[in-house]
């Protein structure tokens, strides 16, 4: 029978503060107070913390007593990790990087992938697929700025795993972008496009970024960060969708030739699946109506026709 955890009352001085064996999760000291339950494991004369590392930095006196759940010294790593993960996910889902650290610990302890999958995947809500373990482990090679950014933006697992397609060296090129604090969706759009361009054009990232003047643009102190992001986003889109971009530019150029009153707008489907224009008018006053009436000259109609043909 497997040794089970038992409740105990401990004092702070019974904790081995230097033992961070199970310190796998991001510190929640900024956002949370104590975890609900302190989980510990007997380790020689002392106890090692399994969950609840916040207690170490809480400035409590040595004789302070607290309730804990205590695993015996011979409890298996997998049993402890299952309890730990169960406790954690009840509070909030794990960040992918935390899941990766759990997997790494399991691998380091010689536990089979099958056991890992059977015991932990259901707790983590993962689909049974041994390939996933390796994919998660790749997250451990992400650079620190990228990990910090993805955590801060609460990125999806899909995004985390996608970034592992970049080598660490290539990831460091993305730091210039991260420093400008793009929204997650813009970040995802830019990095996925960069990756796809490289694959399509058989380029290394260095070659591509040099061609696009990536660093120059992103570090241009004369431009506001937002403007730098806008410019690099446009440049990446243009490279990712060259024909579509040219087509859009032609349409925009033709559109600009139409002298639209300020209370009017012309809209088109920018995927070009539909070849149609929508003219919108904002009519509040008689002046607005006059502007509309005066707009529809032969010349304007001709230009609208040209715009429609250009779509």
């Amino acid at each position, binding site marked *: 029978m497997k040794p089970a955890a038992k409740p105990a009352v401990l004092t702070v001085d019974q904790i081995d503060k230097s033992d961070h064996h199970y310190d796998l999760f991001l510190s929640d000291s900024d956002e949370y107070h104590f975890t609900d339950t302190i989980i510990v494991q007997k380790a020689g004369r002392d106890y090692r913390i399994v969950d609840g590392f916040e207690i170490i930095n809480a400035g409590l006196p040595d004789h302070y007593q607290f309730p804990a759940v205590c695993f015996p010294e011979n409890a298996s790593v997998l049993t402890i990790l299952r309890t730990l993960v169960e406790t954690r996910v009840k509070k909030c889902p794990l960040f992918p990087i935390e899941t990766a650290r759990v997997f790494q610990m399991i691998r380091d302890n010689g536990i089979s992938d099958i056991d890992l999958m059977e015991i932990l995947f259901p707790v983590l809500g993962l689909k049974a697929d041994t390939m996933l373990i390796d994919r998660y482990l790749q997250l451990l090679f992400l650079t620190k700025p990228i990990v910090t950014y993805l955590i801060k933006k609460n990125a999806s697992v899909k995004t985390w795993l996608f970034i592992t397609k970049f080598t660490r060296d290539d990831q460091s090129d993305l730091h210039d972008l991260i420093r400008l604090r793009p929204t997650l969706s813009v970040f995802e759009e830019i990095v996925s496009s960069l990756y*796809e*361009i490289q*694959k*399509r054009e058989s380029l290394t990232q260095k070659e591509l970024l040099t061609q696009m003047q990536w660093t120059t643009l992103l570090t241009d102190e004369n431009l506001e960060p937002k403007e730098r992001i806008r410019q690099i986003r446009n440049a990446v889109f243009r490279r*990712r*969708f*060259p*024909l*579509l971009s*040219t*087509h859009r530019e032609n349409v925009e150029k033709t559109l600009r030739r139409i002298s639209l009153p300020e209370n009017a707008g012309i809209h088109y489907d920018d*995927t*070009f*699946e*539909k*070849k149609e224009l929508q003219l919108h008018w904002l009519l509040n006053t008689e002046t607005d109506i006059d502007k509309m009436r005066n707009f529809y000259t032969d010349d304007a109609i001709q230009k609208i026709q040209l715009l429609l043909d250009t779509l």
Partner: protein
Amino acid sequence: MNHNNRFQRVYITESALQDSVTGDILSKFPSRIQRIVPDDYNFTADVCDLDPKTVLLLARSQGDIVKGCPGTDKSYLCCNYQVINQTQNCPMHCSYCILQFYLNQSATVLYTNFDEIFAELKSKIERQPKRFFRIGTGELGDSLAIDGSVLFAKQAIRVFAEMPNALLELKSKTADVEGLLHLEHNGHTVLAWSLNPQEIIHQNEFTTAQLIPRLAAAQKAAEAGYLLAFHFDPILFYPNWEKLYSELIDELYRHIDPERIAWISLGSLRFPPSMKEKIIERYPNTTIPYSEMVRGMDGKLRYARPLRLPMYKLIYQKLTAVPNPPFIYFCMESPLIWKEVFGKAPENNAHLDFMFAESLYRRFPGLISEKPQRIHYNEGFSLDALPE
């Protein structure tokens, strides 16, 4: 190329064992990989580590398998094609193939109750005697890649030979048609091939027949009196697409007299967005998911119109630059594209269906006894639908 040896396991349901063709199909496989199982046996767990392309299931069909092609969203025109889903999945490996993701089943399925399938077919066709049907077996699999499919095709050719208002289309990427050449088809079977330039075949259509063997097989089929069809689908964007597709059409017409071609379809690459990651995972070296694709009106990713329009125009111009060119149509394209390439578009799916019949009536005298009337198509219904 024999694809039987790709199967690592063959499951046979007890009821399928009673069908006469089952023994013939099984004779092609070593007995050590065969397992007889109850009809309701769930073998999913047995084969969870196997690619469904390598597991074969011989079973009797449950419910109707003669149906209308599902087509796509009504923003795009479809041709009211009808299908017999006797074979489900394909042993070949095309990087862009939707089947490998669309079919959510653990095995390649072959239905063995041929007599029931043909009975279902006949009863459904008889309900619309004034309409001319095009019916294919190559929608959810290749019509000729597996012996069980070929056995079905042979019997179907004979069945269709006696059906006055239907054409059978056998669609394939294989090149072995020897077994079909001597059959009495009565002109009611179309042998069809998917075509792409050799370079694209080489890079994307793994384990299929190469271009020239496909065309040589088509040539033999034509000599045996079969009508032919070709499907330029999916058309793939390559930097040198103009050269590739021009040469492909030259090669096609070098082998095949256009007058023997009943129809040619054009369709550019398209797939549901969720398939993109799966293609990349399965074919890491392919570049096709990285083209300029947009989300179309049906939600699928497809080449942006400014990209696919020039491809269609060139291919159409080349295909029609011959006397009495074949009937050419788009598979799942918008009326806008039809108009921009062909100068006109069918009014709706029923009209397109009628245009097929009208073309066949005009180009192949004797194939359809009475001149097709539009009303029979406007009032027609799919073979899986009952009229109200």
